């Protein structure tokens, strides 16, 4: 676990994802794969449109299709038809959420996970040792192990954004789903959407991830109440990892203090032993050895 300096959660960049606009074309998924030069992966059939079924080492962005049932009302020439269990498909373009204080960056034992000044959380593949601590620490199940043993995930297209461009997925979207902007602006827009009745994920999440993520999702509330619980964890925290961090913050200084105390006690014990020996030898007029085989003047094993 590494101590890291993260940019403030109110500064840097962010993407607001207006899911209601998404048509599920997967252009973002393909653009991500192409821009980042990721090889195609063999996938397996699943009974949904989501393909591959989850993020992979070579698929950093996947459109997750959620099937939900909703009540629909159709009005036609004065007649109203109410359909109770209409199947609705909600696509969510999903990738690393780039937590404001990424726990996986704290968990990396070699500091291979860097956080750019803009807030992009990036795994430096050449430094990754494949320990998987990042995957353990991530509450969103994002980092994935590649065939080379290293872990991979979305880089926020840090190479593009640092050259004044939007991430590849953002740029290619034909439905204006993504708004790539400053965090300040994204928060403002997200709050406006919230005020207009949409549900927003990412503005106020657990302190484990820094209280906020840089990919903020908005969806009409009737759909969001069914989809968000499937896509995002109820609490953005990995309890075991959180416990490890707490334990470490207590144990490291604690063990240091105990070590110092043990050392001090040892020094005192040796000093007292020496004084006792000197007094003893003065009393008897000669050195009082013979306590053990070749040394040690105390009494107890």
């Amino acid at each position, binding site marked *: *676990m*590494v*101590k890291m300096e993260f940019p403030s959660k109110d500064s840097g960049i962010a993407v607001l994802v207006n899911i209601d606009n998404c048509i599920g074309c997967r252009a973002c998924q393909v653009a991500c794969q192409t821009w980042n030069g990721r090889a195609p992966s063999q996938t397996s059939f699943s009974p949904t449109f989501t393909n591959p079924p989850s993020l992979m080492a070579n698929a950093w962005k996947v459109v997750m299709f959620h099937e939900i049932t909703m009540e629909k009302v159709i009005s036609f020439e004065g007649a109203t038809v109410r359909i109770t269990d209409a199947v609705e498909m909600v696509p969510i373009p999903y990738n690393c959420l780039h937590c404001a204080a990424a726990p996986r960056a704290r968990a990396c*034992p*070699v*500091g*291979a996970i860097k956080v750019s000044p803009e807030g992009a959380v990036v795994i430096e593949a*050449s*430094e990754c*040792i494949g*320990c*998987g*601590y990042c*995957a*353990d620490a991530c509450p969103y*199940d994002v980092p994935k192990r590649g065939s080379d043993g290293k872990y991979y995930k979305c880089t926020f297209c840090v190479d593009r954004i640092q050259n004044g461009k939007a991430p590849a997925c953002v740029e290619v979207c034909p439905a204006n789903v993504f708004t790539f902007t400053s965090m300040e602006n994204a928060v403002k827009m997200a709050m406006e959407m919230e005020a207009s009745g949409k549900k927003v994920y990412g503005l106020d999440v657990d302190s484990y991830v820094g209280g906020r993520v840089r990919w903020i999702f908005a969806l009409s509330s009737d759909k969001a109440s069914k989809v968000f619980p499937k896509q995002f964890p109820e609490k953005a925290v*990995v309890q*075991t*990892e959180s*416990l*490890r961090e707490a*334990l*470490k913050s207590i*144990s*490291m200084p604690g*063990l240091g203090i*105990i*070590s110092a105390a*043990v050392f001090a*006690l*040892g020094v*005192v*014990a*040796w000093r*007292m*032993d020496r004084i006792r020996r000197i007094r003893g030898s003065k009393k008897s007029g000669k050195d009082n*050895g*013979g*306590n*053990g*085989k*070749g*040394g*040690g*003047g*105390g*009494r*107890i*094993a």
Partner: protein
Amino acid sequence: MGEEKEIEILSMGARIAHTLQLIFFTLLVLTGLVLLSIELFAWIVYPIGVPLAPMVGLSQETGAVTVGVEVARAIHRFTGPLWGALLIVYGIYLVITRKILVFEPLKKPIKQQIREAIALLNYYALGKPLPKDVEEDLERHNVLVSYLAIVLIIAVILVGGSGAAMIYLNLTPDQHRIMLLLHDIGFYLSILFTLAHIFAFTHPANIPILKAMFTDGRVALKWAEKHMPRYIRSRALRGEIETPGE
């Protein structure tokens, strides 16, 4: 001094096991500390990584720690199973040869154990002499050692079990997370044990045992009669010692 009677209190098996433990455990602790807290312990692996980083195409500036940690992790994962195997073999040896003496003090009534523990703590921490009855009733190991042995066993089960699971089992992410937490808890417990153990074996009272551990396992009989009288009496009763206490 040359004519002084001696007694073996550490068998060859115990000495070999302890020496191997010292090597394996030190390696595991050093490499484990690096994996647990790189911000504090990167210096341990940095000198290893400096010459190796260019060999794997990384710069010395950015790659030294990375390569060093990778080496540490490899050593940790290689040494761990060896250490586990050693513990199992040594445990079987102790059971077969009926040499598990470390829990003997636990056969004493609880009140007596507590009295002994307090007296020993006062002796070690404050230098107060032991009461006569406590001193005369000391076993091969004292009651503090027994308590520490319990801590050690719990620590070994936690680090060994979780470590083996992480290396050999195909765990789900949630299972892996739990194992990592248990590994940490076991590690902290083992460090507590180690600190107490270091204090005990470097204490001036125990230097003869320390010397015996790394030589022939023998201490002066006179010294042993004073430090573990009950144990010496029981060996004398079994006829293993020619001359019991004076």
